[in-house]
């Protein structure tokens, strides 16, 4: 079996938002829509304070709450772990947005150019009417993964088959891969490091793992 997941090393992330920007480029998301972004989290009280940068987005859950509530079956879980949205089936009811505990889904109802005064050439080039009025979210760059499979590339290893955020990360904090493959870098990182998943207590089985310390 294959289970694609994202492994985030919190010791490495500096919150630079390069992944956020790379995602926006690759997926041509409109202003205000960030399928991948990084939280700037402060904890404690002065002077005992910590500041941590936490990349977030769709967690591609094992048991996606968004799938359960979808009335049209637009949201589906693939066998390889990716949670997808069929824009042709989505009616934009936004149940999924409410159900998602990770605040990962977006819906825009109209084209909004970055400068609000007509589209720039890149916006015109990448405009996708199918995404208006429907739920959207991180796809783990599914087109790259599928392309990779079709051309003998390994997702998480070959850039053309790897999500743009992981490709772009300047701290090597994001590692994408098949965690059912014991030889993948993602699997190795999970074996060697302590990790957690966000809101795991909800039983969603997130496909996003956060490393925080080397195993003793």
């Amino acid at each position, binding site marked *: 079996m294959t289970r694609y997941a994202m492994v985030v090393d919190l010791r490495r992330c500096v919150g630079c938002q390069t992944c956020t920007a790379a995602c926006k480029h690759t997926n041509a998301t409109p202003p205000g829509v960030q399928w991948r972004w990084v939280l700037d989290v*402060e904890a404690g009280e002065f002077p005992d304070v910590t500041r941590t940068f936490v990349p977030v987005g769709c967690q591609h859950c094992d048991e996606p709450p968004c799938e359960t509530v979808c009335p049209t079956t637009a949201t589906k879980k693939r066998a390889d772990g990716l949670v997808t949205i069929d824009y042709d089936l989505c009616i934009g009811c936004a149940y999924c947005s409410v159900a998602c505990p990770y605040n990962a889904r977006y819906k825009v109802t109209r084209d909004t150019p970055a400068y609000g005064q007509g589209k720039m050439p890149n916006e015109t080039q990448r405009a996708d009417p199918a995404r208006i009025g429907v739920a959207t979210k991180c796809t783990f760059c599914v087109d790259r993964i599928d392309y990779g499979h079709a051309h003998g590339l390994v997702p998480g290893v070959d850039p053309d088959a790897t999500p743009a955020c992981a490709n772009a990360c300047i701290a090597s904090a994001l590692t994408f891969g098949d965690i059912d493959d014991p030889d993948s870098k993602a699997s190795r990182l999970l074996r060697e490091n302590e990790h957690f998943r966000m809101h795991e207590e909800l039983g969603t089985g997130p496909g996003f793992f956060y490393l925080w310390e080397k195993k003793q």
Partner: protein
Amino acid sequence: MTVSNPQGTTKIATYCYQCVAGPDLLKVKIEDGVATAIEPNFDAEDVHPAAGRVCVKAFGLVQKTYNPNRVLQPMKRTNPKKGRHEDPGFVPISWDEALDTIAAKLRGIRETGLLDASGYPRVAASFGGGGTPTAYMGTFPALLAAWGPVDMSFGSGQGVKCYHSEHLYGELWHRAFIVCPDTPRSKYILSFGSNIEASGGVCGVWRHAAARVEQGVKRVQIEPHLSVTGGCSAEWVPIKPKTDAACMHAMIHVMLFENARSRLDIDFLKHRTASPYLVAPNGFYLRDPDTRKPLVWDLKAGKAVVFDTPDIDPALDGDFIASGLEVLPDEELVTHEGVAVRSAFGKLLDHERSFTPEWAQGICDVPAATIRCVANEYLDHAEIGATIEIEGRTLPYRPVAVTLGKTVNNGWGGYDCCWARTLMACLVGALDVPGGTIGTAVRLNRPANDRQSSAKPGVDGFMDYPFNPTDKENWISRPQIRNANRTLVPLVANSAWSAALGPTHLAWMQQRHGFESFPEPTQPDVWFFYRTNPVISFWDTPQVAEAVAKFPFVVAFSYTRDETNHFADILLPDCTDLEGLQMLRIGGTKYVEQFWDHQGFALRQPAVPPQGETRDFTWISTELARRSGILDTYNKAINRGAAGVPLKGPNYDFSLQPDRAYGVEEIWDASCRAASAELTEGAEDHGLEWWKEHGFRTIEYPRLQWFLYPHLVDLGLRFEMPYQERISRIGEELGRRLHESGIDWWDRQLTEYRPLPEFHDFSHLIKHAVISNLGGRDEDFPFWLLTARSMQYSWGGNVSLQMVREVAANVKGHRGVIMNPTAARKLGIEDGDLVEVRSPLRETRGRVVLRQGIRPDTLLMVGQFDHWITPYAKDFDVPSMNALVPMLMDLTDATGSAADIVPVSIKRIGGAQ
């Protein structure tokens, strides 16, 4: 150019050098002729130190290209009145009209004389971003070189926003215009406010992330607010602003007086520093009368001998009776017979004895126990005696480093902190050795692309240094440019970078009032500026605006309208990053954390056609050269290498004919061929088409070149630490020259020239300087206002890009004034409230962002905003500290810089939105 999958689109290789931490390599994705995305250049994965990645700023380049607010055709001003509230009345004009207008001015100047009545160049130019505009302005450097004297002393942030003291003292002590850890080998890093995760670029982030996780490096971040870097560090020590020198002195005290001497690198101190040099009664070295070489006390012979006598064991510490010659300032000679002398190290011990952790605690608000702990951890990690093999050569291995942030480096206290940092490295033998505190670049010494070659033998066993003269005969009494850099700052040397590293605010201050016994201040007849916005980025920005408004003829290379080109006479729209053509030298060691195992060149090529009527900078430069009658010298300057690579070398010659106006592609084709030949000793001569396809070409760069230590060993040289005899001498001589000329307004700066830094409470000194000049009471300004770099914006000139604004907002502090909640509560301020922040100079407004990660006595304004013309940015409503910081002589240190800090008050004036 490559066609790549998965979408079958074209990807074009180019570079990003928007910040000083570059250049980095990238690819632009082109769909149907439109740039749609930026990606890493994975072709460079094995070449580039960060495996071909680029940071978030590079992803702004697509919007930068298509931004609807760009200036897309030449414009001229129609309203002769200049002022913030005057509409310039810009109207479109043809390129011919724009260039002919400028050329007519330039020809007129050549006919009148290149210098004005005060001896200042009639043409001035300013560039921003720590030299990065050079990577985008094609052959314009050749035009400047062909012109003759150009005043580049009007700063746009230099001295305040840079690492100024480090640039000057770093180059003196270890050819380190920039200082950084040997990150891949370090195990313990003391960072005094160095926000490396925001300002170190892709390579900095990449290397430090690996160091944290793979090497287990411990980084202790000592700074008043918890920066991005503090968040990524093992420990945060919230020190009181601008008291770092006290903390560092105390750490040195712990190392010298609370630990066994054997914990220091005695061999390094004895043989690679001036620690054993004997100091004579007047404070200068005791010298051999015949050779004038400094003397040391040889423990084997029991007598004073010259420092380079073979097979000696020089005493590190102690009082001795010796005879010799003492050379005082201005060559005054004193002969000593049997006088009491002390080693430089002994002088250091005397100097540091009283700086206990308990003493420092009262100044910097860091517990004495923390200071002790950190100093001892530093020693624990130093691994005295350890070695490492680099490319077959065995070198000392000292995995401890100390780094300094810009406000620590700048202004009063900068000398002290740079000295203390360098000394801390010397005490454990960690200066410019693997694992230690090392340098990356030279800008004041020559050659600029090779630190090792720039380290030539000088006097007293030290490296030579190109001090500006301070002796009676050669002191440059009449300033050559308006910031008087070579007249006032011997350390600033005389390279192409020296103008920008002088006291650049003096050029602006002189526009308001002249200085006594100095030439009459004048305005440049023509001022060019590019990729800089000093009306936003300097201090006391309204004063800068006032000065610019009086300049008679201003030519602005413009991307959008902005606060400085608001005062321009001509706007010239150049091709931006993804539209222009240029070749750039890459690799080696440079800037913040760029340590490559390769060196070579990269091409910036048009990924998309130029928008509107924008023109390639090389075309603009050639046309200006042609129309102003200096084409011949312009082409010769290109041939010499003014555009980045000499066109003639030992095995090749692609020189341009002096009298011909070449096309853009012709010029860069010649540069491409020359670059290919330079890299291969003439074996290759790939032209522009090859470079367009491949993007870059490199050869290996020896890792031994990362470290200066082996080069010094080979030359038998020493680091000039701890005692600053030369600094002391030139300071005394400079003072005499200034006083002989009737100048006493630089006296405060002269106090910094001490052989060992004289401690001051710089926090107190700065507050007193501001209030005594501008009025007010101490208690009226209870907060310190600081700033911090933003990776998303720093140096990028990208404030008008929507996407950058959007993603930067995810990082706290980009939308207001960061304040401690406990301090806010006392003033009835809540998160999001509108507040007024007031310095003794003026006030600004913004929204409060409450964060626990800041001292209660400190406020923070990230980045530099406060725009009032720049499209998009003018609607941010985010404050900047720049308008609140005064330009004052009393805030200026001996190197000509001042710190980005000002005392302020804060009060609530409105509720949250």
